[in-house]
């Protein structure tokens, strides 16, 4: 109750100062506020700086992976030459000889004289004879007319042109010799060597350790896709059902407290622990196929569940209790109240949590290495949808890890390129999350 006697005491003392002059205390407070703002700005600027550095270095190192050095030769094969070559014992060798002649003629026509042999061409282009023969055997109508071939150059040619391989540092080896560099220079000035967009990097599968030029991330993207399907199909319903039960229906007792504490702890368990668990349970005990996206998806589901449960419970909790009261008040059952009113209101939060969980799973490497989804497994596309789940495959981050660990410096470039692809996927997922949030929020 209000007590009138309190105010009858001493009247407040006048401060005795003008409002136009800041007193010491005010000055101190204002200075503290200014300082704090400066700290905040600094923190954000530092963050931005690192973000820019990261983005620039990823793009600088990764973009070359999307282009490839190609030797662009126009080649004409007459029918006589074709029959003659097919009659030889070493057929591809014959085609190679014809190609070398063609290149020599082209260079001479431009007035460039360089001595080179078949060995040099093989070091630059691998075994081009096979490519030519395959083409003509499949397209006999091309015989007699000029055909333009884009032959992928070896990674060291790439390296020489991008400055990674230099004349001084080069040691003659079976991969490249100093004389080859002259040939490359000549080919460049004859406009035979160009750079082209490397579709194979996006659509292809992993190649062997000595063929970085042929390596592509496509198969691992498919692996990641099937894995994410498993994760989404399992972790969303299980996670949401578990959180609805825990949040809305479960009695508050020791047992549910224990479960809650454990879920929070699970979110902090290192992913490699889930990996070894998956190896022991899914592969060694349940005998599911090794290296399969199905197993990868199961392991990542275990990892994603705590994230989804925690964020779903938080968003269920944030729905005002008055909505539950309102629904119960008109005679809705508990379940109707939850499913008709609480869940739709919590949907944006649930979706955000789910997509964050999925993005985490998409970028996870360690558990996949343990269950055998390493990069070199991704040698081709699966045959069909079912095989997509069960056939050995890799996933994007594991593929990147495998490339980064390889000796050939060209793989390093591929690893960065792979990271660009991975980031594009993550960005897409985040954009989807934002769009879905907007959609669901606009309805209300």
């Amino acid at each position, binding site marked *: 109750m209000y007590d009138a006697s309190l105010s009858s005491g001493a009247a407040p003392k006048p401060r005795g100062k003008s409002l136009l002059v800041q007193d010491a205390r005010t000055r101190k407070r204002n200075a503290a506020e200014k300082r704090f703002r400066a700290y905040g700005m600094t923190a954000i600027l530092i963050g931005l700086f690192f973000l820019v550095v990261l983005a620039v270095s990823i793009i600088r190192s990764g973009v070359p992976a999307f282009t490839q050095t190609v030797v662009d030769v126009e080649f004409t094969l007459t029918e006589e030459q074709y029959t003659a070559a097919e009659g030889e014992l070493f057929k591809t060798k014959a085609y190679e000889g014809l190609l070398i002649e063609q290149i020599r003629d082209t260079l001479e026509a431009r007035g460039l004289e360089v001595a080179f042999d078949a060995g040099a061409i093989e070091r630059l282009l691998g075994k081009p004879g096979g490519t030519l023969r395959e083409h003509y055997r499949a397209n006999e109508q091309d015989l007699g007319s000029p055909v333009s071939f884009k032959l992928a150059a070896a990674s060291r040619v790439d390296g020489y042109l991008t400055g990674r391989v230099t004349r001084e540092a080069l040691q003659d080896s079976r991969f490249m010799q100093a004389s080859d560099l002259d040939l490359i220079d000549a080919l460049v000035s004859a406009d035979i060597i160009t750079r082209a967009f490397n579709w194979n990097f996006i659509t292809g599968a992993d190649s062997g350790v000595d063929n970085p030029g042929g390596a592509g991330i496509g198969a691992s993207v498919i692996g990641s896709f099937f894995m994410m399907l498993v994760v989404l199909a399992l972790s969303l319903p299980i996670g949401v059902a578990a959180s609805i039960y825990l949040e809305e229906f479960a*009695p*508050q007792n020791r047992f549910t407290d224990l479960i809650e504490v454990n879920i929070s702890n699970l979110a902090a368990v290192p992913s490699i622990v889930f990996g070894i668990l998956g190896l022991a349970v899914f592969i060694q005990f349940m005998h599911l196929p090794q290296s399969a996206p199905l197993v990868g998806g199961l392991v990542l589901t275990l990892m994603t569940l705590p994230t989804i449960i925690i964020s779903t419970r938080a968003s269920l909790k944030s729905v*005002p209790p*008055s*909505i*539950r*009261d*309102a*629904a*119960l*008040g*008109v*005679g*809705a*059952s508990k379940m*109707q109240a939850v499913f*008709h*009113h609480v869940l739709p*209101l919590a949907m944006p939060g649930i979706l955000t949590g789910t997509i964050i969980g999925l993005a985490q799973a998409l970028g996870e490497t360690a558990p996949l290495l343990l269950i055998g989804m390493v990069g070199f497994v991704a040698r081709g596309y699966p045959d069909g949808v079912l095989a997509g789940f069960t056939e050995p495959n890799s996933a994007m981050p594991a593929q990147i890890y495998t490339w980064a660990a390889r000796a050939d410096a060209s793989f390093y470039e591929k690893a960065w390129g792979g990271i660009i692809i991975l980031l594009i996927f993550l960005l897409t997922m985040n954009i989807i999350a934002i769009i879905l949030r907007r959609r669901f929020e606009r309805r*209300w």
Partner: protein
Amino acid sequence: MKDNHIAENEVATKNIKIAARDVQVYYGDTHAIKDVNVEIEDKTVTAFIGPSGCGKSTFLRCINRMNDTIDVCRVVGDILIDGEDIYDRKVDPVQLRAKVGMVFQKPNPFPKSIYDNVAYGPRIHGLARNKAELDDIVERALRRGAIWNEVKDRLDAPGTGLSGGQQQRLCIARAVATEPEVLLMDEPCSALDPIATAQVEELIDELRQNYSVVIVTHSMQQAARVSQKTAFFHLGNLVEFGETDKIFTAPEDPRTESYITGRIG
């Protein structure tokens, strides 16, 4: 003349809608409601008054078992509606709440359209067989909620976009849409301005013709204006219950008198 009067009295005493017998409510170890005995009549407005924390809202929430949602809450004693014990094992609170509607302190429309707000109850109880019937029910409920004229052109607009007073009347319409027999109101005007309060009070008076209305209020003027019976709660006890006129003019209990005259509370 005299005979008529007696007959009226008999009707009034016979129609006991809600009867509470020795009701005790515990929140964990706290004894929130002590020995409450009260008989609430049909087609009257009964007001519960009393200082904050006296248990009037708690008791109100016992009448449609909204306290079930609170884990630590325990109710002892009998509450009968039409002679049936609502705390009987066989009673499903969902069925009970369809019969006993509730309006809350803060307007809490669903974040859906005005139409869906009102239609939700009838839909889940299967009161309408088709769209036309549902439209009918919604219109009738909105008319009873005295808000039809304001919203009839924008039934698709979100209910949360209405003003506070309109929202509360929408909530009342939503509560009456399920054809309840009792309407519980927990300080329905505490979040409203005087004009909206006047509208809601007028509405309560009209609702009396069809329902037994129980209203919890902090405002004694409001209790005096809208109710025929008044119950005064203090520290978990039902101190006095009787005709509103009598409570406000000649209270029997000294505690009632001091509350009404503003000395406690």
